């Protein structure tokens, strides 16, 4: 008896795809958006390989290899482009490129300020033991 039916794998592929979609739409860091898109591709790959198993031929696996190839090329070019974009604006925030939006759309504004940078504990200072030595004439005059 088959204890692992096909729709279990399709459900996992669907969940990964939907989570990647949410990450792509919700995050502002360009790199994290692209990482979510890669997760969508992983969901699709699970679907393809599951169907290959349950139909008994290798067509799904061949297509997954091509998917892998295209994902690698996409990642290479995308990384180069992200570095170019970073050089322009010194930030990876995708909201800085808002003038590319459609004409009727309102802009995205940040009203709440970010929380302040957490100040770490100050570096420890040792109590001075004894007098500080005064440098001699020879040592100051290099």
């Amino acid at each position, binding site marked *: *008896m088959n*204890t*692992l039916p*096909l*729709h*279990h*794998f*399709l*459900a*996992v592929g*669907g*969940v990964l*795809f*939907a*989570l*990647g*979609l*949410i990450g792509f*739409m*919700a*995050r*502002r*860091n360009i*790199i*994290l958006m692209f*990482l979510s898109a*890669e*997760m969508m591709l992983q969901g699709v*790959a699970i679907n393809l*390989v599951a169907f*290959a*198993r*349950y*139909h*008994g*031929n*290798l*067509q799904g*696996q*061949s297509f997954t*290899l091509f998917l*892998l*190839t295209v*994902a*690698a090329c996409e990642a290479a*070019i995308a*990384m180069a482009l992200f*570095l170019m974009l970073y*050089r322009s604006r010194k*930030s*990876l*925030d*995708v909201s800085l490129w808002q003038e590319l939006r459609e004409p009727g759309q309102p802009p*995205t504004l*940040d009203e*709440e300020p*970010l*929380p302040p*940078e*957490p100040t770490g504990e100050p570096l420890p200072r040792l109590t001075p033991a004894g007098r500080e030595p005064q440098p001699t004439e020879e040592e100051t005059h290099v």
Partner: protein
Amino acid sequence: MLLNRAANYLFVENWPLSAALVLGLISIYLLLPRTHRVPPWIGAVLGGLALVLAGVGLLRAEVFTAQTLLFDSFAAVAVISGTMLITQSNPVHAALSFVLVVMSTGGLFLLLAAPFIAAATLVVYAGAIIVTFLFVIMLAQQVSPSNANDRSREPLLSALAGFVLLAAILLVLRASYVPADLKPLDGVIVKANKLLHRLDAVDLDPAAEKEAAAEFQQLAEEFKTVAEELVPKSADESKPSVGLPLAGTLRNEAENALVADPQTWPQSLERLRDTALRVRNSPGMLTPPPYLATSALSGPPSNTPVSERRLDRFGLPAMPAANSAYLGRSLFTDNLLAIEIAGFLLLVATIGAIVIATRRAERAG
């Protein structure tokens, strides 16, 4: 009327799945980064509860085997790492969560008889793509609380859109792959397995063999009644039609087995059992077209009749053990043009990345 049926389907019959989707939506919405974050343990607890409910609602298994345990662990790690990927503020933590996602999908590929794809995915994604990502994160560093890392664009709307899609996918899967009444078929398959096991174990004396033959007749009758229940009904609106493909084939084979030659009844029983397994695995599968574009080197076509296929012990078509060899043979005969184009694509992408990088350095320097 339709709304009543839809509400009934969503909230009464499939309430674990609907509850899981709502809880998952709330947990993702709470976990997405924003300026004043709620403590992450709330989102984590809700998300864990959603995962457990989804497991109960969609993945009910009658038998708990090693395969089920492996699948459950890999799937749970994949989903949890996916959630961590989209909700972490620190991009390095997100990249490492992606490595966890890739490793768990590699495990799932191993469960699906695809060891080459598992290894290739691990090497390419976790080995090359993630390392590239980490280098770029290092070169494009952000000061600690930044607009890019600590804010989200429309968290509520994007989570809602994603979960509406997920609800559509999971509910359609449940409706098409879990039809109402397959328990009689399961029972009959288990009985046939037991009888065949008894025949293989020991040579029977004539009395026991006659008893086994009588049992076979009874079993063939049961197969016939079960198959008749499962054949798609055309005009019966009162009860939902379970109707499975190949159920008609099962009924015909059962009728043939009842009138067959008494010498060959073990083979008939085995064929009946294999057809029943194929019917059991057929819900939700579309009938493949009669003509397929690939040759036999990519594996037998999906519409090969049951008598001409090898089935493994789960009733699924057997996959080649030498996966890399057969995959290579399929790629370089049926998909040769695609392989060449993929290689060309890789070359063009390499040249493009180098050109973009060099131009950037020239403009900066």
